[in-house]
């Protein structure tokens, strides 16, 4: 899941990867992938597709920066990825993944949700994956505009924690990435634990 705060975005995710037979494939998988120092994505769905998308997007952003001598807007990254996903779907080879793109550009913080059909939705807070209905339940009540960084991190961690408590396919720890105009920062396990204890 991801949410916007006053001047940045917070992305958070659990670490469990499972298949629908009920088997947990990994308990340490990082579902937040930084693409550059101003943008990251969260992934859910088919791991293979998500990995390929993050590798290819990282390279594409580098190329964009070289060609245009500026960083891409978060909107530009999202729209580009949506075109790729849509083209895949229409050639009967869909990339089976739901992605949240979050980051900060010259226009401020932005988060976009993308699905495998190629739709792009911008919002103040977003969630995807099996635990998303539970996370949304918390976010709808807790989210408000213009939160501080600390409040936003706490909200994100509580939302993921609710899903961990009640969704079978969510669990095994929390990753948190904060992107502010100053750059991208991944929270340590100790920091995350501190928020949970409060």
């Amino acid at each position, binding site marked *: 899941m991801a949410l916007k705060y006053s001047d940045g975005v917070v992305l958070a995710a659990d670490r469990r990867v499972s298949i629908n037979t009920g088997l947990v494939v990994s308990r340490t998988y990082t579902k937040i992938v930084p693409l550059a120092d101003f943008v990251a994505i969260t992934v859910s769905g088919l791991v293979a597709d998500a990995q390929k998308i993050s590798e290819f997007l990282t390279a594409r952003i580098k190329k964009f920066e070289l060609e*245009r*001598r*500026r960083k891409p*807007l978060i*909107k530009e990254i999202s*729209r*580009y990825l949506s*075109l790729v996903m849509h083209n895949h779907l229409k050639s009967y080879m869909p990339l089976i993944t739901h992605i949240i793109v979050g980051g900060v550009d010259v226009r401020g913080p932005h988060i976009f949700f993308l699905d495998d059909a190629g739709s*792009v939705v911008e919002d103040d807070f977003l969630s995807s994956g099996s635990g998303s209905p539970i996370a949304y339940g918390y976010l709808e009540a807790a989210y408000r505009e213009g939160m501080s960084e600390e409040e936003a991190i706490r909200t994100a961690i509580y939302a993921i924690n609710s899903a961990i408590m009640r969704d079978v396919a969510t669990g095994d720890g929390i990753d948190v990435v904060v992107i502010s105009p100053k750059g991208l920062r991944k929270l340590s396990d100790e920091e995350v634990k501190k928020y949970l204890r409060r």
Partner: protein
Amino acid sequence: MSRFGDQAVGYDKTTSMFSPDGRIIQLEYARVAMRRGLLTIAIVTKEAVILGGLIPLSKLLLPAEKIYQIDDHIAAAYAGYTADGRVLINKARDIAYQNRLIFGEEIDVYTLAEELSDYMQQYTQYGGVRPFGVGIFIGGYDIYGPRAVFVDPGGTIFGIRAYCVGRDDEKVIKLLKERYDPEISYDDALKLAVEGLVLAMKEEDKRKEKKKTEYESGVSHERVLIVRIDKEGVKRIPEDDIKKIIESLGGDSE
């Protein structure tokens, strides 16, 4: 080796061959074609880009367009062989639209110029084609603010502050060099652009006395087209405003 010498051995016959002194002679001819065109001028100020040019006026023909809108925030104008220029305008519009399709955003002025110049460069490296006989100005307002670029027939890109190309451009460039200053106000820049175009019309008049053509001569605001491109988009400068500036310069505008 003189250019005459090169011609004698055929190095000017194709763009896909260098002359022994490392030039592509066909491209130099293309630049000559470009400079035969009516004067086209661009000036960048802090708030807007000014893009202007002269059009031929005839009793029998409708006035030409000269300045073309490429996207909401970009316009282009060219000097040289009109038919070639039109093809480039269509290409530029296509490039701008592709960017909207792919990234959902307006294209940067410089990116548009680069992609257009990639296209123009192709015509200097392959056999059986001739280069475009035009130089094209692209002016726009993007994420960086007001910017203008000039692309020559060979596909070389020049980011510009103030520049002009076309008949009598040497004299107008001299004027721009004397009067342009990066801090120039928009009003002064507009005046400078009009002055440059008036200068070109006067020079042309001197020659016309010897040789009559179907086109009307004399300094006239009807022959001047100017647009302003700022964060609101592309806007034509009204004829009356241009007329007033020409009058204030002491020239008579019929």
